[in-house]
């Protein structure tokens, strides 16, 4: 009997009536997952729009555009776009969509739970994230505009206030507050994810039976739990430096805009960098790990083969998570940090390449000998593997401090993190969306339109980001609003024009995707089968879309691992995790 006392996440099997409780302040993990995905969808188009304006300015700095007063973009407007592009993409898209979005929707279902452990906390963490987005966006509308110090907000530029540049007044303060709120939201989310995975798994769902997706959501949540508290502390210190006159990060003797800053002394700008990157490096794994899990899952499903080396994959995931906390100093090789610690950070960073390489080998091993279906989901998953290789290898350059002396803060770095952290993670999200859309909404995304979207995007991202390596090799520093200062920069202008054109085409293709989503929501082919992909995990044992309490108050029982595809001697080429041994049909 299921009463309110023991009804799992929900008090009962019926969803609350009323629009507000059902769709706005909902405690249903599925609704919250869709809310997170919607927030990410809004944010990704916003962030992309900002990057488009940046690219226009980089290609044709003297051209006049209708969006700006006087037609010309000012350097501070460019830097404000850059700061907000980075912040929105990293926090509101890459942290939100793969983890909070898909994780919220599918983690409870894949482990056989009716909801997250703490549904109200789950709702709170979404709405707190929403508040942080609104606070950050408010920076655009205050006098001085959005901050210009980049998503890393290095002090003293970010700590001195308006005197250090437009946007560094109220705009920067709002940015810091927004980030602090986001940290709190992420902590609540991480706590909920971990508790759910540890204590709410259904019967038989041992660690060895967890899908790779759940493993990566789990490790990502641990990273978030340990990293966001540090970011919160750093934000508080920075805020105090700005508004309360303390000197945590601001050294003495600063003269800026002809004014002597006499009331600050003794602070250390490097202290912020240490705190920020102690959070910041795990953060890039927070962005990419869930993508790795989803891709492992999809490669297996659409090759009709088990994940190659499941235990090695789990081990590599944990190793990346652990090492992710030991390598933050590789962001600081030229910062003035001790050159001896640079050596240690460099070696650890080279080591983190090993589990990443193991992952790649295992992905190739997964599709080797399989029977590959080339639907949109699989195409994006394969694209992810290619991008992961391309973006990962450039990391081997940046991990060596002597090479970083040349490449640091240049376009090579921009190319590296856009490919591996930005585009690869987004490809995983696309792959996941094409895969799970029928489960979430009961209709398929359109495959034909999706393939057009895939091809333009895949070719487009390589055309956009590969040339940025070349800019970096030629010594082009990043965060320049135009390449007009030195002769060597002017010589690189044609490449910037090419990148802008490629970016324009790629961005335009995303509207095909947007159209596909909205068209398919209402007109897409109906997913009549529960399990249209013939997949094995728990979400495919329940209707599409799943009922309010997922399993109708009956806990599923797990008999086997998550990737039993094409098992010899079995009639079907897949075995659901819930299929009892005596029900498996022999060939």
């Amino acid at each position, binding site marked *: 009997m299921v009463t309110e006392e023991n009804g799992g996440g929900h008090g009962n099997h019926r969803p609350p009536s009323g629009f507000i409780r059902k769709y706005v302040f909902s405690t249903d993990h599925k609704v919250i997952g869709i809310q997170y995905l919607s927030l990410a969808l809004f944010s990704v188009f916003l962030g992309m729009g900002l990057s488009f304006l940046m690219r226009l300015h980089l290609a044709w700095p003297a051209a006049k555009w209708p969006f700006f007063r006087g037609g010309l973009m000012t350097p501070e407007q460019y830097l404000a776009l850059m700061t907000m592009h980075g912040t929105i993409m990293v926090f509101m898209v890459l942290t939100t969509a793969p983890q909070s979005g898909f994780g919220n929707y599918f983690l409870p279902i894949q482990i056989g739970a009716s909801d997250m452990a703490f549904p109200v906390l789950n709702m709170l963490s979404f709405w707190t994230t929403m508040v942080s987005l609104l606070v950050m966006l408010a920076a655009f509308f205050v006098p001085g505009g959005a901050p210009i110090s980049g998503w890393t907000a290095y002090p*003293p530029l970010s700590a001195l206030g308006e005197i250090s540049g437009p946007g560094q007044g109220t705009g920067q303060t709002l940015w810091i507050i927004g980030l602090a709120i986001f940290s709190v939201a992420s902590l609540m989310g991480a706590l909920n994810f971990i508790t759910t995975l540890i204590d709410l798994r259904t019967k038989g769902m041992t660690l060895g039976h967890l899908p790779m997706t759940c493993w990566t959501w789990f490790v990502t949540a641990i990273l978030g739990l340990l990293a966001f508290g540090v970011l919160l502390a750093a934000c508080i210190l920075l805020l105090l430096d700005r508004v309360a006159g303390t000197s945590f990060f601001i050294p003495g003797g600063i003269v800026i805009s002809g004014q002597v800053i006499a009331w600050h002394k003794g602070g250390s700008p490097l202290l912020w960098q240490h705190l920020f990157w102690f959070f910041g490096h795990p953060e890039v794994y927070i962005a990419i790990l869930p993508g790795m899990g989803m891709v492992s899952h999809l490669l297996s499903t659409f090759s009709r083969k088990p994940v190659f080396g499941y235990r090695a994959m789990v081990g590599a995931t944990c190793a990346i998570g652990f090492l992710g906390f030991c390598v933050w100093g590789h962001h600081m090789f030229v910062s003035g940090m001790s050159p001896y610690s640079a050596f240690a950070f460099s070696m650890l960073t080279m080591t983190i390449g090993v589990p990443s390489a193991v992952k790649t080998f295992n992905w190739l091993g997964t599709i080797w000998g399989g029977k590959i279906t080339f639907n949109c989901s699989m195409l994006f998953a394969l694209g992810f593997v*290619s991008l992961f290789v391309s973006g990962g290898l450039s990391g081997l350059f940046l991990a060596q401090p*002597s090479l970083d*002396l040349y490449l640091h803060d240049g376009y090579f770095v921009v190319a590296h993190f856009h490919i591996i952290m930005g585009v690869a993670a987004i490809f995983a999200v696309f792959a996941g969306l094409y895969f799970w859309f029928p489960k979430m909404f009961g209709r398929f995304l359109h495959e034909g339109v999706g393939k057009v979207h895939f091809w333009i995007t895949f070719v487009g991202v390589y055309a956009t980001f590969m040339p940025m390596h070349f800019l970096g090799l030629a010594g082009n520093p990043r965060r320049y*609003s135009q390449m007009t200062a030195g002769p*060597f920069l002017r010589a690189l202008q044609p490449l910037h024009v090419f990148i802008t054109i490629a970016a324009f085409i790629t961005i335009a293709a995303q509207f095909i995707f947007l159209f596909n989503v909205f068209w398919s929501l209402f007109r897409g082919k109906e997913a009549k089968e529960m399990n249209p992909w013939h997949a094995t995990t728990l979400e495919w044992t329940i209707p599409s879309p799943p009922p309010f309490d997922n399993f109708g108050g009956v806990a599923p029982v797990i008999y086997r691992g998550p990737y039993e595809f094409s098992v010899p001697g079995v009639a079907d080429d897949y075995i659901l995790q819930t299929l009892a041994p005596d029900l498996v049909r022999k060939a």
Partner: protein
Amino acid sequence: MLSRPAESGSTSTALALSVFLVLMTAVTVYILMAKIWWFPPAITAVGHEIDGQFALTFLITGVIFVLAQIALAYTLFRFRDRGQKVTYFEGNNTMEVVWTLVTLVLFVGLGLYAQNAWAQVHFMGAAPGALPIEVTAEQFAWNFRYAGPDGKFGRESSDLVSASTGNPVGLDPNDPASKDDVVVPVMAVPVNRQVELIIRSEDVTHSFFVRELRLKQDAVPGMDIHMHFTATVPGVYEIACAELCGLGHYRMHSTLTVMSQADFNEWMKQQEAANQ
């Protein structure tokens, strides 16, 4: 249950994806090998060593890049759905151990090998007799201070900083050692002589970057960071700011002129004369 029919168009999609991967790999490798957009020549011994390390890293990552992309292209084409039977296997522990160890040795070895150049730049201080130049960054300009004939830098104070009165670094006129100090907005150094830089900032964090020196160092307020180099090729080189420092970041640049010792002495004399 249902046996899934081979997707129509599976072969053409697989072929297209494979061809694209091969093409992308080929174009990337070609552009890198043809050095269409490439480093400017290095002008220091350490720079040449760093270039050697770059070459080694390009070789190793290049081979992995080509092998991995081609392997992906080959695998996805060969194992496209043609209604064939799947070869069932769940993994191979020997292979896992082998590729873990191989990549570990390769990556860590590469990292160890790279430390030599880093040690030359950072673990050793400048030799005695090196020419000291103090580099002071400000929004959005570089100031270079030479010690003058007495070889001593005079006292500075942030209270005295005033760009409008021609004292951008705040020299203290009461200190006799500062009388002959020369502050200029461009940098000149004699060829084949070691130069010691003392890098500092007056306001926010900047970064001193000269491509041909293969050298980059943040200028952090509150810190005096020492670097050294010996330029071996005369010429004029661009100094750029490589750390976001505010709205004028993109135009914060200067030049480094490497000249013969005789030319340098002449240049220095002119600057001292202008300084009086």
